[in-house]
């Protein structure tokens, strides 16, 4: 019988096992009788002899059973049953324990599921641990990949294949109303690198990969199901994507869900693939060759980068490439906040566990006499520990189950409030990984909160059972350990409340930071043309759209820009100034290049500091103008007058410069919620840059939302083949950019509040049981004339003293923890005094309140009743 069989039998087949034994004994007796008869005894004599020989059958059966079932397990099963019965008589204790643990585990499991989905879970691709992103940087500034460098990287033998891709939102036409779909534009050996073969049909040919063949498209499984109901005949069809017919060559397998919201995979167009070495728009991924390691591949690309720098000094000087595992790179932007949230939730869980430990200590105190009696009747210390461990385990199992149920909702709630653009958020779910995490965590917690009572049980003094005085000698020690637990709780809560206060202040700062524009009475609408749309088509559309929008009743002005403020993201280039040598730092510094209609900045209310705004160029006018922001003016023209000077977007040695004359200096417009300082930016006419993704702003007299439908209709009329994106009020669009810090601040706040409540309950519990135990003493004191208010002060003071010690520890923890949060904070430093002081006062107030209730009870003790009671 294997170990597992035995355990199984001991747990669930006890009756069957007993039957087996009984049958074996019966067989033995029968044989003995038969033998006796054979030897010539009468049946009766033989029976009697056999019975005599066999002796007490039940005793043998029992001894045999004890030898065969795993005894400790048997005992533990008994203890578990006993624990369930014992706890069912104490529903208050049981449910407090289960709910604290359940909430803690539920919160932890939810945050872990999201963290795992974002940071650690392997991307659903074959051998995804061999997939590496190649991060390029020039002089330390992050730089996107480009096709010539991709070709260079692909030639490194440490890689079996390499690809570069970028996402593009395209319009699907000819299948009902225009639909926006998400395309992955690839170049290089995309399918070979990702390790994916189409489920049906074929992959791209060499010519198609270069973008020079007939236009082709691979469908994702989900798109195929949605658009073609999974019909194989889709393979012989073509779809109109981005205004061009593309033949469907294959369907990707269902398991290919990376990135998760993808509809189609298409080769990048030939002209995009011909982009120069100076461009930077590709996300480069390579698969390690079978014999390569990350280190060997890193060495190989270091050598390659050195050669590239030599061969292409103009563009590749200062090039440094770093290999980062794909999973890690994907989780990069979410890592810090998610880990911070995970840390917070674990701290809260710890506070909850301490609460349960404290409850179980009370329970142990109640059962002290019972334990003592057991010990004096011969129970081993081990059996006592097992008995207490069983109760902890019952609470742990119930709490963990409740926690996992809560996590099912928790994950969805988190996903609903978190920014949807986190690339792998959709993959977050309560799966076997989060279940394993929760069970492991529960076990750790259970061991943690079971240790104190079990240790106490093991030290139960036997004489206790013999004494009639119910108050044990250990009660002072017990109170001390519970006080220590309360200190831990309050200290941890202090830390959490401080962190929450910092996050709250940071969020408030972020919201009140100057915007540099007036967001009210602005309607916004976005619309994306496909990347290769003819620029004349775009400019004609923009002119018509602006005319039509301005003609709408209630509209004062309409403008267009490449990206909305606070939306984040930007196109950057280093700049060159005509006739000036820039310091190396400035020469390489990325400057935001923004395209807008001439009236954009003035229409959103950005201030003009010097010079004049851009003007619409008339036919034949070739003088290109630019408006720079204040930061750019201060950084590059410190002291000098920038008006009239010329700048070029690109490095000095990057070919024939294209000069823009500076017309004016505008105030800084806030481009991202989390930016700490305003980036240098230059505004040029949208017609001077190629940018097919349009963002319209409409100034209205009244409620901007009232015009939403009219504006959408006007745009749709002008471009019936395009999908008009979100039409919304600017203030609402802005609130979305605060979503991430907001979620984080609320999570921190919620966990801190929960911890604070638990700590208050913990402190209350300690003081309350102290008062109960000392009721007699208090009665005597009062009878002897003690002052009631002095008594009240005494108990409150006891609580405050505990809190003061805990606060000192907690504030220390808070300073340390806030260091870790530093990069998430906005406009508030770690160890910010007002936050710390404010949190400390909150803790003190809560602690006073928690102490006041038991203290008042102590002060109200009626000496007559108490003393008579004894």
């Amino acid at each position, binding site marked *: *019988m294997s170990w597992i069989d*035995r355990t199984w039998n001991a747990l669930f087949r006890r009756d069957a096992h007993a039957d*087996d*034994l009984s*049958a*074996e*004994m019966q*067989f*033995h007796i*029968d*044989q*003995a009788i038969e*033998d006796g008869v054979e030897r010539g005894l009468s049946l009766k004599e033989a029976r009697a002899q056999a019975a005599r*020989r*066999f*002796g*007490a059958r039940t*005793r*043998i059966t029992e*001894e*045999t*059973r*004890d*030898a*065969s079932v*795993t005894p400790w397990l048997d005992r533990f099963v008994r203890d578990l049953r006993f624990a369930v019965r014992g706890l069912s008589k104490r529903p208050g204790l049981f449910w407090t324990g289960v709910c604290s643990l359940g909430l803690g585990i539920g919160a932890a499991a939810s945050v872990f599921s999201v963290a795992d989905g974002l940071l650690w879970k392997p991307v659903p691709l074959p051998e995804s641990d061999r997939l590496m992103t190649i991060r390029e940087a020039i002089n330390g500034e992050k730089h996107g990949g480009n096709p010539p460098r991709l070709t260079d990287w692909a030639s490194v033998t440490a890689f079996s294949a390499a690809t570069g891709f970028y996402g593009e939102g395209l319009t699907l036409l000819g299948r009902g109303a225009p639909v926006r779909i998400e395309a992955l534009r690839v170049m290089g050996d995309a399918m070979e690198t990702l390790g994916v073969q189409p489920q049906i049909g074929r992959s791209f040919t060499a010519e198609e990969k270069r973008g020079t063949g007939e236009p082709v498209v691979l469908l994702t499984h989900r798109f195929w199901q949605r658009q073609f109901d999974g019909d194989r005949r889709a393979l012989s069809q073509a779809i109109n994507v981005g205004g061009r017919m593309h033949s469907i060559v294959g369907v990707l397998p269902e398991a290919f869900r990376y990135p998760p919201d993808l509809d189609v995979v298409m080769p990048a167009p030939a002209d995009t693939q011909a982009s120069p070495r100076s461009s930077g728009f590709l996300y480069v991924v390579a698969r390690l060759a079978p014999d390569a390691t990350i280190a060997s591949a890193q060495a190989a690309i270091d050598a390659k980068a050195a050669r590239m720098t030599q061969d292409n000094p103009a563009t590749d000087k200062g090039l440094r490439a770093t290999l980062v595992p794909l999973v890690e790179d994907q989780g990069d932007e979410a890592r810090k906040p998610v880990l911070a949230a995970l840390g917070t939730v674990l701290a809260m869980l710890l506070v909850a566990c301490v609460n349960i430990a404290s409850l179980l200590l009370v329970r142990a105190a109640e059962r002290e006499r019972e334990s003592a009696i057991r010990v004096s009747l011969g129970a081993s210390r081990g059996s006592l520990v097992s008995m207490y461990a069983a109760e902890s385990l019952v609470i742990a199992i119930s709490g963990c189950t409740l926690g996992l149920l809560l996590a099912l909702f928790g994950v969805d709630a988190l996903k609903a409030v978190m920014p949807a653009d986190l690339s792998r958020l959709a993959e977050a779910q309560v799966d076997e990984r989060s279940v394993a995490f929760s069970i492991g965590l529960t076990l750790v917690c259970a061991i943690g909160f079971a240790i104190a009572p079990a240790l106490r049980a093991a030290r139960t003094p036997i004489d206790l059972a013999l004494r009639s005085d119910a108050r044990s000698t250990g009660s002072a020690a017990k109170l001390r350990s519970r006080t220590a637990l309360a200190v831990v709780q309050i200290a941890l809560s202090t830390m959490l409340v401080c962190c929450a206060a910092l996050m709250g202040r940071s969020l408030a700062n972020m919201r009140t930071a100057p915007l540099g524009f007036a967001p009210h009475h602005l309607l916004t609408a976005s619309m994306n043309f496909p990347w290769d749309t003819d620029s004349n088509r775009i400019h004609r559309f923009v002119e018509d759209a602006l005319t039509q929008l301005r003609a709408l009743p209630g509209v004062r002005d309409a403008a267009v820009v490449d990206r909305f403020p606070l939306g984040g993201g930007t196109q950057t280039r280093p700049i060159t100034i005509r006739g000036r040598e820039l310091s190396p730092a400035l020469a390489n510094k990325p400057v935001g290049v923004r395209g807008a209609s001439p009236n954009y900045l003035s229409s959103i209310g950005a201030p003009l500091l010097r010079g004049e705004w851009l003007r619409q160029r008339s036919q034949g006018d070739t003088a290109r103008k630019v408006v720079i922001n204040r930061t750019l003016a201060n950084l590059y023209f410190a002291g000098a007058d920038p008006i009239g000077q010329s700048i070029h977007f690109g490095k000095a040695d990057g070919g024939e410069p294209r000069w823009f004359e500076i017309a004016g200096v505008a105030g800084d417009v806030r481009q991202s919620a989390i930016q700490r300082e305003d980036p240098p930016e230059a505004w040029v006419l949208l017609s001077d840059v190629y940018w097919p993704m349009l963002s319209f702003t409409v100034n209205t007299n009244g409620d901007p939302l009232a015009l939403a439908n009219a504006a959408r209709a006007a745009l749709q009329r002008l471009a019936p083949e395009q999908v008009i994106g979100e039409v919304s009020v600017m203030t609402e669009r802005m609130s979305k950019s605060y979503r991430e810090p907001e979620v984080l601040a609320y999570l921190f706040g919620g966990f801190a509040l929960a911890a604070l409540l638990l700590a208050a309950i913990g402190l209350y519990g300690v003081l309350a049981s102290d008062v109960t135990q000392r009721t007699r003493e208090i009665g005597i004191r009062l009878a002897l004339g003690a002052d009631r208010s002095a008594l009240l002060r005494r108990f409150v003071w006891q609580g405050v003293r505990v809190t003061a010690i805990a606060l000192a520890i907690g504030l220390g923890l808070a300073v340390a923890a806030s260091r870790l949060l530093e990069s998430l904070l906005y406009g508030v430093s770690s160890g910010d005094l007002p936050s710390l002081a404010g949190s400390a006062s909150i803790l003190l107030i809560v602690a006073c309140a928690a102490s006041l209730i038991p203290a008042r009870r102590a002060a109200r003790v009626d000496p007559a009743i108490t003393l008579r009671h004894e």
Partner: protein
Amino acid sequence: MGQTKRSDVLQGTLTLLVLKILEAEPLHGYAITQRILERSGEFLRVEEGSLYPALHRMEQENLIKAEWRLTATNRRARFYSLTAAGRKQLKTETENWLQLSSAVAQVLGVA
């Protein structure tokens, strides 16, 4: 009481005897007692009260394994057989026993 004494002596060596008896073929509990009785010239009578707990303990220790089989007379009985670990144990215990008995014999001066 004399009987108890004898079985006490037996207790320490019961494992060894059972292992030895089972080395030849799988047997059920009753047959084991009979076989030990026969082989010891009717001297060693194994107590049922010792045998079954010992058998189940040995099963627990993975020295023997048990299965239900039919006897020659077509009745269901629990047959015990040696495991690999049991065979090893038999070897070491036999050696120990021989050493012990020769040592005891030397002390008694009968060797």
